[in-house]
């Protein structure tokens, strides 16, 4: 497979996943802000930080401190602002651009559904939906991205191109889950006036943003607290948005592309590194108390970044 094509496939997967993740995060934060006895900034600042847009948002706010309390403003910034690199409309555009660059690889049905999402996201209809039916807007984005991912799996050959797309999806998901958990874990555990009810609603909201509330409740019927939630989102191998699951799935995709025994083919360094991360997460069985969560998540984020760099050099034709 051509390295440039693999590169576009990988980023197609990443941007589709990022689109969905951002939509989930904004929708659940909105719901949280509506019923929590929390300062609005405590809800919204972590969202901006997770998106990596803290600096941009500060510039956008232009010294207006109230902007950090203004959920509508954060949402508009991260959902429909075409000037913001991490916004939903920009991620959709980037996903579609990558797909268009490899139209011959993406199945017609998957392409059409992504193209429809793109055309809608740039339309007045989408802006009206955002202004008047916010929940409907996020729901449509989430469903459309799920449709794209589902169509790719059900209408494309299960071979190398799809492996690269899925590798992108999984590594993006590792990084999203790790950052969402890290930022929110930090924000919630350092609240000054901690209150059990408030804290529980925060953890439930976090689980919801990762579609993990119901699966979590099936596993942990008792208290929803920092320890249990972090453990679930990091180590639950059966939950498809948990870090352990995603890292392992990413390893399997890469091992299909470049089998461990094929020592003559490029990709060995990346594969070994991904394997090491997979092993490291599986090997950790201690209770993740105190700063351990933050340290582990920082490692995961850094390693994922390094793995993507190495992948670019070995297989995607980056200089």
């Amino acid at each position, binding site marked *: *497979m051509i390295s440039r*094509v693999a590169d576009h496939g990988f980023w197609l997967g990443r941007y589709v996943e990022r689109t969905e993740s951002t939509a989930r995060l904004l929708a659940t934060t909105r719901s949280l802000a509506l019923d929590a006895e929390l300062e609005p900034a405590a809800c919204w600042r972590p969202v901006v930080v997770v998106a990596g847009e803290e600096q941009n948002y500060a510039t956008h706010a232009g010294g207006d401190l109230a902007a950090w309390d203004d959920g509508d403003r954060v949402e508009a910034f991260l959902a429909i602002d075409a000037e913001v690199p991490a916004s939903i409309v920009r991620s959709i555009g980037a996903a579609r651009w990558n797909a268009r660059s*490899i139209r011959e690889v993406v199945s017609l049905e998957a392409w*059409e559904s992504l*193209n*429809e999402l793109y*055309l809608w996201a740039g339309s007045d209809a989408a802006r009206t939906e955002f202004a008047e039916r916010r929940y409907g807007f996020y729901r449509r984005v989430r469903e459309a991205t799920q449709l794209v991912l589902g169509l790719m799996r059900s209408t494309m050959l299960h071979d190398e191109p799809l492996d690269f797309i899925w590798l992108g999806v999984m590594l993006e998901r590792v990084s999203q889950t790790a950052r969402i958990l890290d930022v929110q874990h930090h924000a919630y555990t350092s609240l000054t006036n901690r209150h059990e009810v408030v804290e529980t609603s925060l953890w439930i909201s976090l689980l919801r943003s990762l579609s993990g509330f119901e699966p979590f409740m099936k596993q942990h019927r008792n208290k929803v607290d920092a320890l249990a939630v972090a453990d679930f989102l990091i180590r639950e191998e059966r939950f498809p948005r948990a870090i352990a699951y995603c890292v392992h799935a990413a390893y399997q995709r890469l091992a299909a592309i470049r089998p461990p025994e094929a020592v003559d083919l490029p990709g060995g360094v990346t594969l070994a590194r991904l394997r090491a991360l997979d092993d490291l997460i599986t090997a950790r069985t201690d209770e993740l108390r105190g700063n351990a969560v933050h340290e582990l998540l920082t490692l995961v984020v850094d390693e994922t970044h390094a793995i993507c760099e190495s992948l670019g050099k070995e297989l995607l034709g980056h200089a």
Partner: protein
Amino acid sequence: MTAPLFSGYAPLSGTFDEILAVDGPRPTFARVLDALDRLNTDELARLQQLAEQALLQQGVTFSVYSDNRGTEKIFPFCLVPRLVAAADFAHVERGLEQRLRALGAFLDDVYGDQRILAAGVIPAEMVLGAVGYQPTLRGVKPPGGVRIHIAGVDLIRDPEGTWRVLEDNLRTPSGVSYVVENRTISKRVIPRILDRARVHRVDHYPTKLAETLRAVSPRSIDDTSAVVLTPGPYNSAYFEHSFLARTMGLELVTAPDLFVDGDVVYCKTTRGPRRVDVIYRRTDETFLDPEAFRPDSVLGVRGLMRAYAAGNVALANAPGNGVADDKAVYPFVPDMIRFYLGEQPILAQVPTFVCARDDDRRYVLEHLDQLVVKAVDEAGGYGMLMGPQASAAERAEFRARIEATPRRYIAQHRVELSTCPTWIGDGKQLAPRRVDLRPYVLTSPSGPWVLPGGLTRVALVDGSYVVNSSQGGGSKDTWVLKSGGAI
């Protein structure tokens, strides 16, 4: 207001309307017209909207050059099909096969012994002075012996209904993806009418093209790796490049994906280098290889022409074909047919004045207000003077240009292009609009094959003669009717 579809439809005087003759609808199309006429204007408006929506959703778009943000538009589409009678197309088909055999022989000759120049059939300076002539390729034999793998020949019909060749496109003709996609839309939106009409299929074009490409591979067909080379997603025809790669099951590559080692072309893959045998290149030949054509260019694949000359890779189409579709060489194609094949030309042409010839030039300069002047090395409707509509200043400018470089210009009397009923969205009615037809011809070592169909381009603007998509043109699905049973 709802009205029967053809009520109020009147052909233009002095033009050939392909559907409506002076004494009523042409009998060959009766069956189709009857089915179409059952639609009223409201229904057609609704169906037309459905068709446009489908094209946009499928991403059947072209990029607009003038817009650096890479905006994409759909190629305007008229749902009312362009009908071609079986007998008409049989004539066109024979004519095109003959023409392509002669043009292929001409290219072999020009890059070989140049017998036709020695015989004085075409003035040598017309050929050797053409921008598309590549002297460095003389003596290079293309793998499989084919040079014009894919041709798109533009045809028009004059006021008598006679088919005439307007120009040959022998380098990288585009548009065939719209032929296939337009049919998909017809099938989806007006299936019953299509069924009643009994139309030749066009969706096997990609398969035929893939066979044509494999047939010229320098290696055995089982080992052959063919690719489609595109300038990239910003190119106006990118949709088509990707469409063809996808429907042929070939990989779409850009120049940086390829490299040459030891006169063999390789592709950079996730499993290391892989040999490439056939390249269907949709890039301009001057950007193929910086080593051979443009030392200043960073585009292209360094060493590609060495690999080609060594016979290790087939390029479709062959570089150097521009000498045969040069507008100043066009007037001599009938002579080529007689010279190489010993046959009389089947298809007529448009009488052409070659400004490099003294008598012709004098006539052209005296009749600028009646002629269409074309620069020989430009396409897409650019570099043209439409004499009858031009201002005095425009005519003066062309006079100066012709006098400065006569070799660059030819002139023709404006041909009254035939018209077809075309849906006009603003007026919600059918009106006659001028059309041309670009059929596609694939040539493999066993000879030419003509796709029974082609791209019908239509000048959507009232009174316009320019069918190019860059200048207000649109397209129609072309229905070549099957012979027999025409009731």
